[in-house]
């Protein structure tokens, strides 16, 4: 995006947005490693540089990471899904209810939860494709609807807890060195990456993002492809719900409140254009990482902890980072615009 046309291709790929973001991430990481790791007053080595902490960051960012992953293809098709956070909540409740009240075994309940996620995504998909409604409005409606159903099912009151330890393993333990959910997240990342970057489906998401009409005239099955991205988003949201439930050991109707905004922030920070067509899964991954590292790294700085406002400061900085990234990403197009519309004299 930044490179001009006549540069060699290796240089162009080096200067792409993802590389810059990676650089930011590495710098961020090094700074926090340096200033955020210490032997604390109790004599323990603590902070950002400890392996435990790194794993915690990983564990805490998996759900939002999954939602960001789910949103990447959606945003590539120039759509949006505001309902993923609510769907996460609904799925968590459904899972809890199936297991607790329905007496189903964990795997069956989990499988059914994924089906419910797919159905939630399918509702979005149906309204968006069959009736040609704008995704923003449809998912604004289902944002309320899904959360409302979760509250209605539990009457707002029930919290499902006491899941068996075999299930909690999914969210709280390590397997082969990494937290269990990190493996799942990795697997999903690879799958979505392949889908988006290596298959004709991913290609058609982009075409639809740039020009839905053009895609239809080219004989691409637009409705089916668009449906797929929303259904996939629903399934991934359901998976995130399982992980969330396992991590916290409880399923409650307010699970995942506000997650959609974090996920969208991560996707956009990752360089995916909100207007569709442009973007990459790698970027999303880096975006999620950049936000998670910023948030957790800040919280490791003794200065920030003593200010008693880690959350506020990280919120402020995330917003600022987003604006800076956007501005940076927009500079080339802006310059191009200037060149086209102003005399060079």
């Amino acid at each position, binding site marked *: 995006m930044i490179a001009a046309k006549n540069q060699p291709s290796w240089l162009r790929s080096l200067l792409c947005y993802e590389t810059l973001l990676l650089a930011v991430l590495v710098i961020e990481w090094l700074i926090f490693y340096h200033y955020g790791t210490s032997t604390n007053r109790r004599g323990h080595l603590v902070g950002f540089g400890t392996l435990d902490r790194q794993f915690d960051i990983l564990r805490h960012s998996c759900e939002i990471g999954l939602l960001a992953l789910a949103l990447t293809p959606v945003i590539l098709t120039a759509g949006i899904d505001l309902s993923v956070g609510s769907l996460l909540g609904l799925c968590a409740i459904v899972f809890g209810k199936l297991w607790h009240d329905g007496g189903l075994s964990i795997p069956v309940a989990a499988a059914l939860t994924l089906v419910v996620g797919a159905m939630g995504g399918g509702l979005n998909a149906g309204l968006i494709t069959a009736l040609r409604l704008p995704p923003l409005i449809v998912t604004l409606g289902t944002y309320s609807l899904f959360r409302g159903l979760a509250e209605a099912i539990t009457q707002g009151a029930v919290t499902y807890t006491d899941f068996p330890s075999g299930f909690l393993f999914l969210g709280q333990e390590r397997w082969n060195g990494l937290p269990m959910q990190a493996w799942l997240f990795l697997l999903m990342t690879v799958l979505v990456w392949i889908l988006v970057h290596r298959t004709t489906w991913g290609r058609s998401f982009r*075409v639809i993002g*740039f*020009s839905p009409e053009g*895609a*239809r*005239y*080219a004989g*691409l*099955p637009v409705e089916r492809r668009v449906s797929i991205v929303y259904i996939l988003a629903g399934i991934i949201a359901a998976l995130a719900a399982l992980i969330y439930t396992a991590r916290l050991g409880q399923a409650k109707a307010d699970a995942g409140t506000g997650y959609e905004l974090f996920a969208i922030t991560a996707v956009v920070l990752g360089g995916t254009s909100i207007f569709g067509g442009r973007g990459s899964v790698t970027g999303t991954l880096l975006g999620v990482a950049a936000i998670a590292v910023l948030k957790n790294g800040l919280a490791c700085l003794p200065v920030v902890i003593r200010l008693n406002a880690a959350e506020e400061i990280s919120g402020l900085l995330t917003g600022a980072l987003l604006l800076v990234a956007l501005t940076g990403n927009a500079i080339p197009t802006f310059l191009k615009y200037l060149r086209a519309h102003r005399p*060079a004299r």
Partner: protein
Amino acid sequence: MLSGPPTPPPLLTLRRAAKNFGGVRALRGVDFDLQAGEVHALLGENGAGKSTLIKIITGAHQPDAGEIIVAGRSLTGLTPSLAQQLGIACIYQQPALFPDLTVAENIGLRLEPAGSMRRINWSLRRQRAQELLTRVGADLSPEAEVRTLSMPEQQLVEIACAVGAGARIVVMDEPTASLTSREQDRLFTVVRELRSSGVGIIYISHRLDEIFALADRVTVLRDGESVGTHAVRAITHAGLIKLMVGREVDQLYPPTEFTGGEIVLELRDVDCAASGVNHVNLAVRAGEIFGLAGLVGAGRTELARVLFGLTPADRGEILIQGRPIAPRSPAAAVALGLAYVPEDRRRHGVVLELPIDQNITMAIHPRLFPNAWLKLGAEQKLALDFIRDLAVKCAGPQALGGSLSGGNQQKVSLARWLATQPKILILDEPTQGVDVGAKSEIHRIIRQLAKAGLAVIMISSDLPEILGMSDRIGVMRGGKLTAILPGQSDAHAVMAAALGQESEKGAA
């Protein structure tokens, strides 16, 4: 100073205007002038820089170098609104209208004076719009939303705007590209009226006969440079073409070699209420070029859309090689061997943000990538072949569709559908906005495809093209196929059928 003939000072002068887009040098130091009361034609191949030149004149683009002098004033930093104040009006190649607003409001927004806090008089607006529409011969309601209009109808609204602006300089970038001869005649009358009232008109067209019919002087552009300005009276057809292309071009249509083949496509009583297609019966044979003529809004594009599954038929039968089919989506139609090169190439034909190679392979994903797995090498190779075969002028297969000129976009759009190796090819205005060189190239390709056994349906508003290329000519009116004429019909018979004056014996 040179002492020329004693002409009054020109309305507009351009001196050494230059414009680059990134690496593309669209204009390199062009001189141009326009006198009051003349029609000055601009001619050149696709991508020669005509549209860029006029965008500089209207302030839509700022030149990188050079000078614009309007009425003796040298201008820097010309903007669209300043240009309007100076009396420059323009009909762009791509209608620059507001699709969500009504025709009346579109005209109002262009023509009413500036002033942000001004009251809007809606009835005056409507009345004025109605007058202008009548004047340019457009049978449109001022209350219609522009998005519901077809391309040619939108073009008419643009013309109405330009006429209404009372401008001293009117620029028309291929205004007739999608007009049929009746609107064209109407437009010519308007242009002549304007000229006689002292307006200077810059007129761009790829149709040479229009230039000879209308223009006083002609400036030819080649590769962003002016290769000379001539009085139309003093130059010949062939001379002009040579100036444009730099070589002689055979302007004759390649001869038909159609001798008859099996029926590939058959329509029986096809109806589509949503798009107004009404009881169409038709049979097209392998190797045949079936031309579809008609006036604006006659429903030819609509028929193509029905065939291609964009607006599925609700009654009747469509058969391909005798088998009944019911395409309900373009995807289904493509699988059945249909291909449709749409008329609005910027919206439907190419995806402007994607590179040429991806544009070309877009319709053949299932065949080129059978496991849904992308193979970029194969894609690139295929694209290079088409770029070579169709002589697409571009920086390479990775160049974005949007960086191409209109004609080259058309070739990419055509390439996409040739790549599907269809049985039936529907071409909607295949040479609209395409220069003579490329046009004869496309005609040759169409002929070749027919010879290879394709059934071709060619929709065109360019009557000579229909007459020259078609083996049979279908004429549509009001969504009905009203007549099918033999290929060697004369223009009168076709026009009569299109206008509905045709009698039964005409068809026999």
